């Protein structure tokens, strides 16, 4: 069906309204041409009796009520995929922009994806060694997990993401068969370049698929960028059994794009002007991580989001945290003390960690040690606030030990070099060295048998 419609009823933000439309289907893709030449794409987001509201991905600049011709394509937004996409760079709507020509597509896949049946999922259990102590030791990344980095502007989240991507090491079935899907949403060109350069330096560029919607690119397109990226990831993971690490940055820009479109549709806002369906929309992205019990491929997601005003209760980090399986939180205070990566240990968490560490996975003492580090470091915070009132000298002896532990923990355990790759044994041994600063009886979270093995009683000062 190739009827073309001439003219528009109205244009507002990234939305246009077409009147007199027939046989349109909900969420189908519309092609838009203007007298200036070139074509754009849009999606029908509301259908009335004879009108359609279309969200234009490339923006509405230059569109008028009379100079526009629209055509229904009869299909949803699709991405052409084949194994050739590895090593290529696409724009936010999945068109190649690296000058290497078109992709010869093996098939076209609806970018919206379909919900994975919980019955067909494989519960993720295999851990990924990132070589970063604060993550491996305390918020272990598991293959098939979605673990976001909550950060703030000016913090080294990009460095951390690159370090994770390049150091990540997995065990088990086809462990060398990995690839990275990088998805930029509304980040500056510099950030995208930084990632590309780093991937190149590390020699993995031919295993990276990049989807770039930069901050200067249209807002409408930003909505489909992560969907294109995840469609590529699903294709590689579930049809070619590859292990895919997806880096999504920056989810905050994505959410703001969603808000912009929602408000131009006159929708009723919920918190901070974001639409009421922000949670469901986020879920349609994050829930595409995982593993299937029918194949050996996996999708692990590391979304990066900058918390507006460093506020973790802002709707964007808040709703994300409810969907993702934990979070790694970066903290400005630590960074200013010169600690890299500035991982704020207490609010950081990996929900899948419990089933992927310990005997048979990492080391028998790992769960208890992690637990004890959390408990001890949390006590450090209390002692610090006490010390700030009464002064360090007035503290009880044990409390002084805690202060010492706290300082050493930050300097030696959390802090590490940007290319320092510690394996899990190094990380846990380091933790023991630090815990030995504390008297043995303070370590109540550790099973006494493990304590006897790693911290024998005669060591007690």
């Amino acid at each position, binding site marked *: 069906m190739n009827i073309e419609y001439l003219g528009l009823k109205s244009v507002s933000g990234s939305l246009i309204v077409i009147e007199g439309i027939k046989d349109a289907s909900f969420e189908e893709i519309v092609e838009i041409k203007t007298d200036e030449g070139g074509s754009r794409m849009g999606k029908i987001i509301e259908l009335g009796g004879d009108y359609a509201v279309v969200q234009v991905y490339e923006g509405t600049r230059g569109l008028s009520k009379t100079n526009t011709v629209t055509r229904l394509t009869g299909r949803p937004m699709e991405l052409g995929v084949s194994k050739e996409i590895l090593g290529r760079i696409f724009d936010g709507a999945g068109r190649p922009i690296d000058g290497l020509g078109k992709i010869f597509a093996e098939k076209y896949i609806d970018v919206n994806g379909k919900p994975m049946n919980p019955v067909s999922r494989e519960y993720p259990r295999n851990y990924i060694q990132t070589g970063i102590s604060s993550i491996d030791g305390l918020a272990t990344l598991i293959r098939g997990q979605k673990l976001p980095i909550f950060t703030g502007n000016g913090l080294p989240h990009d460095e951390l993401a690159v370090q994770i991507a390049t150091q990540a090491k997995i065990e088990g079935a086809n462990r060398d068969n990995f690839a990275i899907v990088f998805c930029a949403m509304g980040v500056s060109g510099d950030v995208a370049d930084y990632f590309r350069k780093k991937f190149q330096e590390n020699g993995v560029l031919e295993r990276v698929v990049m989807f770039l919607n930069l901050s200067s690119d249209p807002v409408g397109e930003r909505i489909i960028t992560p969907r294109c990226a995840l469609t590529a990831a699903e294709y590689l993971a579930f049809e070619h059994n590859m292990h895919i690490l997806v880096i999504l940055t920056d989810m905050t820009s994505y959410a703001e794009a969603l808000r912009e479109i929602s408000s131009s549709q006159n929708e009723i806002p919920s918190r901070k002007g974001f639409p009421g369906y922000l949670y469901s929309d986020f879920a349609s992205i994050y829930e595409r991580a995982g593993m299937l019990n029918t194949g050996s491929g996996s999708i692990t997601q590391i979304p990066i989001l900058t918390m507006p005003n460093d506020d973790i209760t802002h709707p964007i980090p808040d709703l994300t945290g409810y969907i993702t*399986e934990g979070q790694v939180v970066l903290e400005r205070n630590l960074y200013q003390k010169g600690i890299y990566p500035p991982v704020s240990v207490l609010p950081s968490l990996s929900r899948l960690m419990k089933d992927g560490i310990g005997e048979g996975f990492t080391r028998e003492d790992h769960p208890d040690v992690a637990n004890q580090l959390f408990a001890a470091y949390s006590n450090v915070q209390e002692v610090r606030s006490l010390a700030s009132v009464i002064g360090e000298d007035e503290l009880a002896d044990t409390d002084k030990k805690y202060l010492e532990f706290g300082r050493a923990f930050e300097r030696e355990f959390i802090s590490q070099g940007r290319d320092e790759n510690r394996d899990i044994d190094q990380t846990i041994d380091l933790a023991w060295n630090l815990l030995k600063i504390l008297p043995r009886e303070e370590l109540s979270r550790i099973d006494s048998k493990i304590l006897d093995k790693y911290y024998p009683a005669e060591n007690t000062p």
Partner: protein
Amino acid sequence: MEVKGTIFSINGPVVKVVGSDGFKMYDQVFVGSERLIGEVIGVGDKHTVVQVYENTTGLKPGEEVVSTQRAMSVILAPGIIGGIFDGIERPLKVVEKQSGAFIERGLTVDPVDTTKKWKVEILAKVGDSVSGSMIIAQTPETLQIMHKVMVPPDVSGVIEEIVPNGEYTITDSIAKVKTASGKTVDIKLMQVWPIRIPRPHNGRVNVRRPLMTGQRVIDTLFPLAKGGTAAIPGGFGTGKTMTQHQLAKWSDADIIIYIGCGERGNEMTQVLEEFTSLSDPKTGSSLMDRTALIANTSNMPVAAREASIYTGITLAEYYRDMGYHVAIMADSTSRWAEALREISGRLEEMPAEEGFPAYLSSRLAAFYERAGYVNTLCKKEGSITVIGAVSPQGGDFSEPVTQNTKRFVRSFLALDRLLAYSRHYPAINWLSSYSEYVEELTPWYEENINEKFMGHRTRLIAILQEEANLNEIVKLIGSDVLPDDQKLVLQTARVIREGFLQQNAYHPSDTYVPISKQFLMMDIILYLNEKAREILSRSIPISQIIKTGIFEEIISIKYKVDNENLGKFDEYRALIDKACSDVIANNEVIKR
């Protein structure tokens, strides 16, 4: 007469229909050529409004909408227990067979297997007069659950015909009942019931039995009641889901209905995997033999999320009517409220607080009201306990869902972010949580556990409260300057927190603790407190008692004493006595 209309407009899950005035509120409809399942939620002047339970991508105006002429209903029959369903009772395992690992649209699948033959034992005979919910037959649904075949609640009359014992499918007629009006009704193993209407019962009874969960902070400090309601609010990462899982695993209900409402797919997979391999502490058979799962994960259609809660509670009511004690875990009711908000927004209704519709509180109330301990129509006792997780935005308990829920539940288990940060699990805050059931359950505890139980509980809470007050001072001046008796309060409170309230879900003997052991643990902690106080009264400094390590010994009881080996508590009592007499003896020496 067929009721049919055509699609006028589409906005997300909300479809407006024109062309017929015959649509009834809450009737189930088929939408479009793919026959997507929907429900009528508004009948307007010009349009009928339908919410669609599946993704509406690809629908076109002008496509047909057909009413099924009955309210949105679920099928109730043997085969539900052990299954995993989506929000509108489609079995996900069958869906997987039809559409693979990703869920397609427009699937029509039977909720339960209609071809399976059940071994039915007939309990009634021809000539018996029967009324609604009377049991006329039974069949073993799982190793653990005997499924009672009931006359539907709205049928009564005399049995005209009944089949002999044998094997029947759920669609076979097993009996014919002649009603007073002369009609003959076929009775099958299967019933159909609309999800938004509570199933009738014969009156509520006061709650008087606790729902034992094996979790110390709940059973001892903030008990749940069979037939009661509870909310577990907490920000992300505070362990709501973990707590719900623990309750689903260990609580002593007969049947668990676990509703994953707008939560993670991996969590449902985990429940399915884990429950299949774990065995019930009471009966030894698999936990799935008493569990049904309803999964509407966060990326499944939002309208079905709204329905999933009602589907779950209707299943629960059905088993309650058989005389079972059912517990429902709804994780999370906030997602359900957000689904309401999303639909309401698309209907352009006037929002109340934070965009939520004004009817949020009445819907919440109606849901929690379906809990209760009742006399069933068949003259048995059954109960539904509802435990709803709440995910407050930003962890702020003043938001509308938490506040409205608080009005309708009687146990409130507040999860605390700071406790979770220090990995104190379960992170239930002992100062802001409460249970209104304590009074009603006191006789049960005193009769069945120990008459000192409630006294001990009060003492424990008092110590924790005192600790909280002292901590205010400690924050300013440090703990060193406190007098010894207050230092003892801090020590005892530490023992209570670390040795009693904290519970390790991954430790084989700590994940579930019988109430008798809970009492003994409480008893020994208070005994230690008592003895230490005696020593202080002899003006011996507390540091000497701390040095003996006895406090740490008592904390480690939770790992060192197996649930089967409660005799060991006497040894610990002796240990305390010895530590204390040693301290005293030492001091005598020093004095001399």
